[in-house]
C-alpha cells in the first residue's frame, strides 16, 4: 500500500525531472550568466553591468519599441483572419477555393516566404513595376526604415493567418445558426450581424487567437527578419530575438545576449500572465 501512495509521484517524476534538468536549470544558468562579463572578463561577476549596457544600447531600445509596435498591430493580425473566416462562413462565392488558398502560406517555411517577398518587394521588383505602370514612383519597401518593419509584420501576418483562420472556422462550427437566422429575419445588415451576433458568440475563440498570435509574433519572426531585412535598414527592424542572435553569434557577447534573453523572457512572462488573466476573466463571465 505504501508503494501505491508513492506511485503518482514516481509517475510524475520523469516529466518534473526533464522540466527541471532541461528547462529550469538552463534557464537559471542563463540568468546567472547574464550577471557575468564577456571576453577577458569571462565568468567574473559584473552585477547589472550587462543590463545597464543593454538599456543604453539604442539598438535594444529599437527592439523593445518594435515589440510595442507588434502589440499595437496585434488587433490587425487577429481581425484579418477573423473577417476572412466570417466571409467563408457566410459562404461568399468561391468560399471553398479561398479556404484552401488562405491556408496555403501557413505550410511554407519563413525562409521561403521571406525569399518570395524579397523578390516581390525588391526596388526593381514586380510590385514597383506595377506601381510604375500607373505613374507611382518606386518605393524602397525593405530599404526605407519607416516602412520596412511594417512590411515584415505584414508578410508575417500573410504567412501565418491561415492557422488563425482554421481556429476561427472551428469557432464558427460551434455558432448557433438559429441566431444568425433570427438576425436576418429581423433585417440586420452584414455589419450588424458581425458586430452583434458573431463577435460576442466567438469571444473565447477571439481571445485564444489573440494569445497564440501574440506568442507567434514575439517568438517566431526571426527567420523572416533574417531573410528579409537582417535587422536593417539602419537597425529599424530589430526584435529582441534578432538582437540576441546578433550579440551571441556575430559580436561574441554571450553574456550580453543572456541578459537580453532574460529581458525577453520577462516580457513573455508578463504578456503570458496578462493573457491568462484575460482568459480567466472571460471564463468567469461565461
Amino acid at each position, binding site marked *: *500500500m505504501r*508503494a*501505491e501512495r*508513492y*506511485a503518482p509521484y*514516481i*509517475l510524475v*517524476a*520523469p516529466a518534473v*525531472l*526533464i522540466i527541471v*534538468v*532541461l528547462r529550469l536549470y538552463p534557464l537559471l544558468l542563463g540568468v546567472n550568466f547574464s550577471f557575468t562579463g564577456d*571576453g*577577458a572578463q*569571462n565568468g567574473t561577476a559584473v552585477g547589472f553591468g550587462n543590463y545597464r549596457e543593454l538599456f543604453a544600447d539604442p539598438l535594444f531600445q529599437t527592439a523593445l519599441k518594435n515589440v510595442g509596435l507588434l502589440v499595437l498591430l496585434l488587433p490587425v493580425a487577429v481581425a484579418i483572419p477573423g473577417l476572412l473566416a466570417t466571409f467563408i462562413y457566410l459562404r461568399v462565392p468561391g468560399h471553398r477555393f479561398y479556404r484552401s488558398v488562405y491556408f496555403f502560406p501557413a505550410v511554407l517555411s519563413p525562409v521561403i516566404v521571406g525569399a518570395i517577398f524579397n523578390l516581390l*518587394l*525588391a*526596388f*526593381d521588383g514586380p510590385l514597383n513595376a506595377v506601381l510604375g505602370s500607373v505613374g507611382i514612383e*518606386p518605393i*524602397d*519597401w*525593405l*530599404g*526605407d*526604415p519607416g516602412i*520596412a518593419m511594417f512590411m515584415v509584420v505584414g508578410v508575417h501576418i500573410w504567412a501565418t493567418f491561415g492557422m488563425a483562420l482554421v481556429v476561427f472556422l472551428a469557432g464558427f462550427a460551434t455558432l448557433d445558426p438559429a441566431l444568425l437566422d433570427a438576425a436576418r429575419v429581423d433585417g440586420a445588415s452584414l455589419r450588424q450581424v458581425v458586430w452583434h451576433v458573431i463577435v460576442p458568440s466567438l469571444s473565447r475563440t477571439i481571445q485564444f487567437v489573440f494569445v497564440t498570435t501574440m506568442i507567434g509574433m514575439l517568438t517566431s519572426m526571426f527567420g523572416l527578419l533574417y531573410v528579409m*531585412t*537582417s535587422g*536593417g*535598414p*539602419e*537597425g529599424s527592424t530589430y526584435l529582441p530575438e534578432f538582437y540576441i*542572435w*546578433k550579440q*551571441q*553569434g*556575430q*559580436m*561574441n557577447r*554571450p553574456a550580453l545576449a543572456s541578459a537580453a534573453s532574460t529581458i525577453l523572457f520577462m516580457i513573455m512572462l508578463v504578456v503570458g500572465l496578462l493573457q491568462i488573466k484575460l482568459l480567466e476573466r472571460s471564463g468567469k463571465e461565461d
Partner: protein
Amino acid sequence: MRQRAIWSAVLVVGLALAGCGSASDSGKSTSSDGKLVVWDWKSGEPFAKSYLEKAKADFKKKHADVEVEFVAQPFDQYYTLLGAAIQSGKGPDVMLFNGGGQIRDRVDALVPLDEYVAEDRQRLAGWEAFAKDGKTYAAPVTLQGYPIYYNKEIYRKANLDPATPATTWDKFVADCAAIAKAGSKCFALGNKEGVGIQFWLSSLGSTTLTAAEYDAWIAGKRDWNSANVKRIFQTWKESGDKKMNSDGANSTAMFNDSFALFQSGKAAHVMGLMSDVGHWQDFNEFLTPEKLGVMKAPVVTAGTTPSLPYDGGIGYAVAKWTKDPKVAADLVRSLSSAEALKAFYADAGAIAADTTIDVSQAGPAVGTIVGELKSGKPALHVALSSKTLDLMGRLSQQLLSGSVSVDEVVKQLAASDQAG
C-alpha cells in the same frame, strides 16, 4: 499494486537515463586520442574535395595514426555554433576562421601557433589578419582583398577607353556620368547588411588617406577627425547623392544580388573580392576574361598612391582544449601546404595565401591582382572591431538615406572605436 510500482520505477529510471544521456552527449568533447575534429564551412563544397585530399595526404605522412574528421557547418550559423563550443570549453580541435575581428575576438580560446609555423612564414602571405598582440593564431589558406572590377563592355558603350580607367576621383565621377548617360549604373552596390561600406572604405583607403595615416590606422591609432577619414565617408555619400549606385542599395544584399547586378551588365563597377565568391571566376559566366577589368582605386587625395587592400582571407586555428597542440598545428600546416593550396586555387579560383602559385592561365584580371600583392597593404576595415563594423554598416545606410551627417558618423565611430 506492488508490480505497478516496480514498473513505474523502471519507467522513471529508463526515461531519466535517456534524458541524461542525450544531455551529456551534446556537451561531450569531440577531441579524443588519435583523432582530430575540424570545423569549417568549406569542406562540404565540391570545390574543396581535392584541396582536402591533398591536405589529408600531407598530414598522413607526418601522423599516420591520427584520424581527421571534417565537420562542415553552415556559414551563417558558424560563429554562433563556435561561440557555444568556446563557451563550454569543448569542441573541435582545429577550426576555420575569417581573418580580422572574427578571430581576434576569440583568441582567448586559441593556441598561439608562432613556434609551429615558423617554417611557413616566408612562403605564405596574409599572417597579420590572424595575429593579435604579436602572436599568430591561424595559418592563412587564402587571401582576401577588395579590388575594383569593371565591365569593359559598358565602358565601350559609354565611349570610354576600357584600357585606361579613371585615375582620379573627379575623372571617375565624370566617367560615371557618361556611363549613366549610356543607360547603366556606375556601381553595383549591396548594402542591406551594411557590408558595402566596408569594401568602400578599404578600396578607396589607400588613395584617400596619406601613407602615414594609413599605417597609423592599421596600427590602431585612428584619427577619426582627420579630413581624409571624413573624405572617405563623403565619397560614399556623394555616390548616393549623385545616383552612382544601383537602385535600392540599402535593400540589396551584397551576396549575391549586387554581384549579380554587376555580372549581368547592369552596373559598370563593383568592389568585389578575391576569395572564392564575388570574384572573377564568379563573374565568368557572363563576363568573360576579355570583358572583365580590374582597376586601381582612383586618387581622391592628391599625392597618394593606390595599393591593393588585402589580408589573410580564411585560415585554420587550433583550440586551447586540444590534447596535443603540436599534432593539431601539424594539421593546420598541412591545410596550408603548397600542394593543398594549389588545389584550392585551381578548383575554387581563390587567390591562395601561397603567392608562388602560377596563375598565368586564369586571365588578365587575376594577373593584375596577383601583380599588386607585393605593394598591397592590409585592408582598413579589417582593423576595426566587429562592434564598430556593425555600427558603421548602420550609419552607412543612414548616410545613403540622408538621415545623418558625415560629422555625426565619424563622431559615433570614434566613440565606438575607442571603447574597444
